[in-house]
């Protein structure tokens, strides 16, 4: 090993960060491999020492779908815009499952990795980020089930789904990451977040048109309803895959706006709290 081949060491300046800290995206880029490794580790470890392994990624949404079908289709007979209920529910359960995993894992990520936070430097953003990305693997597996269901019930999707679906997936990720940034940073100091997460997820599920169609909400409440960005995501998934609803309209843009607002404020809140993480965790 010759010293000549080594790049000159870069000088790092350490000083107290003031006001709204710069986002320091360059560091995030330098540490991009760590994001990959963290996601890879989460996926690898998640189903270790389970009998059914990756099958859990299928069983969980399918069981939920079956329960929903029994309760809301057979018993309550909710309208589904002419789509067979299992497909109708499963289309929504895909982004919802991704969101819930990302929200729960992401919000706990800093506290769960406190030994890393108190011992070494790395951009702390990596922790909630990789928790959110790790959910994508389960999403991909469950997506295959959806395709099978659609074949079985002979639901033909619209062809523009190839560009609309990724955009709605992105919206789901941005929303989940935004909320996870807020909650993970608060969780460092106030573990109340741990207690609040289970019912927060539950309330959020009721406020999102997963089990029912958003067309049951009366016209005058639609805008208020769309303040929940996940409503926009779920309606978008249904529109892109099943062709229900109106497609992009005012309510969607409200959802997108709220989602971006949560994400940007979350990013700045996280960054401004980041300097105290190692001291307070």
């Amino acid at each position, binding site marked *: 090993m010759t010293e000549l081949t080594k790049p000159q060491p870069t000088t790092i300046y*350490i000083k107290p960060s003031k006001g709204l800290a710069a986002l320091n995206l360059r560091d995030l880029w330098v540490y991009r491999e760590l994001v990959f490794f963290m996601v890879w*580790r989460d996926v690898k470890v998640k189903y270790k020492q389970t009998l059914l392994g990756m099958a859990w990624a299928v069983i969980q949404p399918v069981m939920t779908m079956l329960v929903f079908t029994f309760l809301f289709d057979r018993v309550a007979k909710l309208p589904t815009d002419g789509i067979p209920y299992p497909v109708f529910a499963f289309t929504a359960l895909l982004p919802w499952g991704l969101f819930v995993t990302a929200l729960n894992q992401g919000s706990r990520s800093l506290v769960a990795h406190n030994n890393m*936070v108190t011992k070494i430097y790395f951009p702390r953003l990596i922790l909630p980020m990789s928790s959110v990305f790790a959910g994508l693997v389960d999403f991909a597996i469950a997506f295959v089930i959806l395709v099978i269901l659609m074949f079985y019930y002979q639901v033909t999707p619209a062809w523009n789904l190839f560009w609309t679906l990724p955009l709605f997936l992105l919206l789901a990720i941005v929303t989940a990451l935004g909320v996870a940034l807020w909650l993970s940073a608060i969780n460092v100091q106030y573990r109340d977040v741990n207690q609040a997460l289970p019912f927060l997820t539950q309330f959020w599920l009721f406020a999102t048109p997963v089990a029912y169609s958003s067309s049951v909400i009366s016209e005058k409440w639609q805008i208020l309803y769309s303040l929940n960005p996940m409503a926009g995501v779920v309606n978008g998934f249904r529109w892109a895959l099943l062709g229900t609803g109106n497609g992009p309209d005012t309510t969607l843009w409200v959802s997108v706006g709220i989602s971006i607002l949560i994400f940007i404020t979350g990013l700045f809140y996280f960054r401004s709290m980041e300097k105290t993480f*190692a001291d307070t965790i």
Partner: protein
Amino acid sequence: MTIAISVNNLGKQYKIGAAETKFRYNMLRDVIVDTVSAPIRLAKAIIGKSDRRLNQNFVWALKDVSFDLEEGKVLGIVGRNGAGKSTLLKILSRVTEPTTGTVSVRGRVGSLLEVGTGFHPELTGRENIYMNGAILGMKRNEIDKKFDEMVEFSEVGQFIDTPVKRYSSGMYLRLAFAVAAHLEPEILVVDEVLAVGDAEFQRKCLGKMNDVAQQGRTVLFVSHNMSAILRLTQEAIVLNKGQLLKRAPTPEAVDFYLSSGQAESGERVWDVEDVPAASAPFRPVAIRIKERGGKVVDTVRSTEPVTIEWEYQLDLPVTGLRVGMYLNTMRGEHVFTAFDTDDAKQFEQFGTRQAGRYVSRCEIPADFFNEGRYYLGVNASSFGVKRYFMDENAISFNVDISGAPGTQWPEIRQGPIRPRLNWKIEKID
């Protein structure tokens, strides 16, 4: 010569004393009021308008510290517990941010503290090497290149594809150390006080540090062990209460440190300003470690009894007081807890202690300690009423085991105690 580390007017402030509010509840009413107002408090705290901030105390763990270190130099850092040594290292490795001042660091900073950070028990040795390497800031091709070397160094060879939860603790530590040791940072910081692991492992750390220094890289070395500081460093700085008191060639700095009375000298004296107001009416004065002859010592012999003496002042009569200690090893293992009124009769006799100056003294019998450094924490409280004073790290001392049982064999004995047991050997057939 290029400057590797440049520290300018560095300061770090910590909040303390937020825990006091916990002892306030005497009445159910308080609990209810507190619970009802909790959501408002949480919301206020999140937007940063916490009213709690008013009764918080701040301490400067570091204040106005400035120094430059040239590339390739080995700098020792000495100072008693709480002098700011670890805080300084934490700022240099960017774990925590300074409150004031700046530091510029040329190159990657590695510390042997990071050993095993991010290891996951379910992953195999191979997977953990990649994971841990990435966490320490290595690129994947860098890990690929050093992989074989690391495996060889760790001596876990054939188990490299076994989940590390099946490893023995020794194998685990060796693998973790192998990754950290191959990081090849431009600057290495070593905090011996916090280093985990057995004596063998610590020797390995020091050996590695020496290698790094030989290769002309910059090293910062924190230790309570003056002989290690003298052996491994040419220059040292002395920290006291967060301030840099002296920078000099190591022998001079160590001499200054030992003679200025702040060293771990077997005695700890509390100045009036060191004692928080909340501990009134209890006021600690001094704690001393004494050998059989009554001399205050830093190193005791395990074959002789040791006396521990705590002097304190009571400004008012106190009921139900118990004054005592926690004993821990350097690795943080708890050895025992004991109070001066553990004996029920003694507790009755001293039910209420009048105001005045007291000494609580106890003797730890001979043939008790094993080799190493022990930390003594102190506590003065009335059970279920109030904890007046506590310092988990009041003083530390070394134990020398010459003549202790089993020392005829030059081997390391595990465990914090080394009793002389009454062995009988009988021939029964």
